[in-house]
């Protein structure tokens, strides 16, 4: 029995959501329905099987739909082991030292100086961080003509943001080591990791499909569509035929490995301030707060920058106390952006969709022609 059939059998036996799919004849994996954050949240008790202590986290992903993630110790270990093995392929030794870049205001001199000192003094084997943070650090080192004599450094690893060609080029030039990419979700971690040919190779612990997001039918090999993922590790909540909202395509390489290509992103979203830009991934620090808002009745949200000093939190659903959200966002902006901005909270019927991918991004940045106070 192959892995997908075995998983299907297990789902039907154990999970109330999937029991309805047990028919007289055998059920194929592809008969199972597509799932997403909204469905799992609405019918959570039919998906969740808790065994012992779990680790909790929150994500709104890139679509502004808050989700409560849980992982058992066993799942965390399996997911971590999978990631560790990918890094080992890039030479990461046992007893290694790695440096993790924060995604707080990395444009500030003191933060950049701090991390540069860490690179020079601690000599990590690996530096990991979001693309924007890695890029800012590389530019800082380049600008200040700092000599890096770290012979331990083996590779730089991106996560959490799309990585552009320009960012790869600059980071590679400054650190003189490969830049590797990691595509995954907070819900189930690694989906694909850069292989020795520089391609995003799909992890052995997931199954990935590409569907046409309008018809929901399978896309042809090599055709772009929505990435749908199934995890063989996650059982506390099964992520089976789980829609990511991301666009990509799958092709097989000469060795028969599945390679994922993400739809090219022009740029990451930035919050434009009077004196600098800050990457909008900083709103990830509010994932837990946004999830709590779902208890009040919010199903999806979006933060729209309306001017250099105005942010509007737009949401679908209901909210009892808008001032509570305004206050939280004000505090956040002050502490994390070092700036004062006017915050408004607005209920809407529909959020703004990306004209190319159709995705609903968490943050809508200021168009270039509207930079004014």
């Amino acid at each position: 029995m192959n892995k997908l059939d075995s998983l299907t059998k297990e789902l039907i036996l154990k999970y109330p959501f999937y029991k309805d799919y047990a028919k007289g004849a055998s059920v194929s994996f592809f008969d199972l329905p597509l799932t997403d954050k909204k469905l799992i949240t609405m019918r959570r008790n039919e998906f969740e099987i808790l065994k012992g202590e779990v680790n909790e986290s929150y994500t709104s992903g890139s679509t502004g739909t808050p989700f409560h993630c849980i992982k058992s110790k066993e799942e965390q270990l399996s997911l971590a082991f999978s990631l560790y093995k990918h890094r080992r392929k890039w030479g990461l030794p046992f007893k290694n030292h790695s440096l993790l870049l924060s995604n707080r205001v990395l444009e500030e001199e003191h933060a950049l100086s701090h991390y540069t000192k860490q690179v020079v003094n601690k000599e990590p084997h690996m530096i990991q961080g979001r693309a924007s943070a890695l890029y800012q650090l590389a530019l800082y080192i380049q600008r200040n003509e700092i000599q890096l004599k770290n012979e331990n450094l083996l590779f730089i690893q991106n996560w959490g943001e799309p990585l552009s060609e320009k960012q790869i080029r600059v980071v590679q030039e400054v650190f003189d080591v490969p830049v590797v990419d990691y595509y995954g979700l907070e819900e189930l971690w690694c989906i694909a990791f850069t292989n020795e040919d520089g391609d995003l190779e799909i992890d052995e612990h997931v199954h990935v499909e590409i569907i046409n997001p309008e018809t929901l039918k399978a896309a042809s090999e090599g055709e772009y569509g929505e990435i749908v993922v199934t995890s063989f590790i996650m059982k506390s909540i099964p992520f089976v035929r789980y829609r990511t909202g991301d666009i990509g395509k799958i092709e097989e390489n000469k060795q028969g490995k599945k390679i994922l290509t993400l739809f090219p992103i022009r740029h990451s979203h930035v919050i434009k301030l009077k004196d600098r830009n800050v990457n909008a991934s900083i709103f990830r620090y509010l994932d837990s707060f946004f999830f709590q808002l779902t208890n009040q009745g919010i199903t999806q949200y979006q933060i729209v920058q309306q001017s250099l000093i105005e942010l509007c939190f737009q949401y679908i659903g209901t909210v009892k106390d808008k001032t509570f959200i305004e206050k939280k966002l004000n505090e956040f902006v002050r502490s994390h952006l070092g700036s004062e901005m006017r915050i408004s909270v607005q209920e809407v019927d529909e959020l703004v969709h990306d004209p190319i991918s159709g995705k609903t991004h968490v943050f809508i940045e200021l168009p270039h022609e509207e930079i004014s106070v």
Partner: protein
Amino acid sequence: MSTVSHSVDILKIIADLTKRKQISLEDRLVEDLYIDSITYLELLSFLEETFFFELDLDDLEPGKLQKVQDVVALVEQKRKTVSL
């Protein structure tokens, strides 16, 4: 490679990872050797690479390997599967 030499090699690997001079088969990985999750990952990876096998998801349950002798038993089991 014989079972005896596997045991010796595994004891040496764990001693090295935990920076201890002496390890016994009865030592418990967490309670006696204070192996944390990162060291546990390193151990598993080292075993795969040293003894040329791949672990399954079932093998990774933390409670499965309580003592050093459990690690030896796992390696023996995996080596038998590889040689079949």
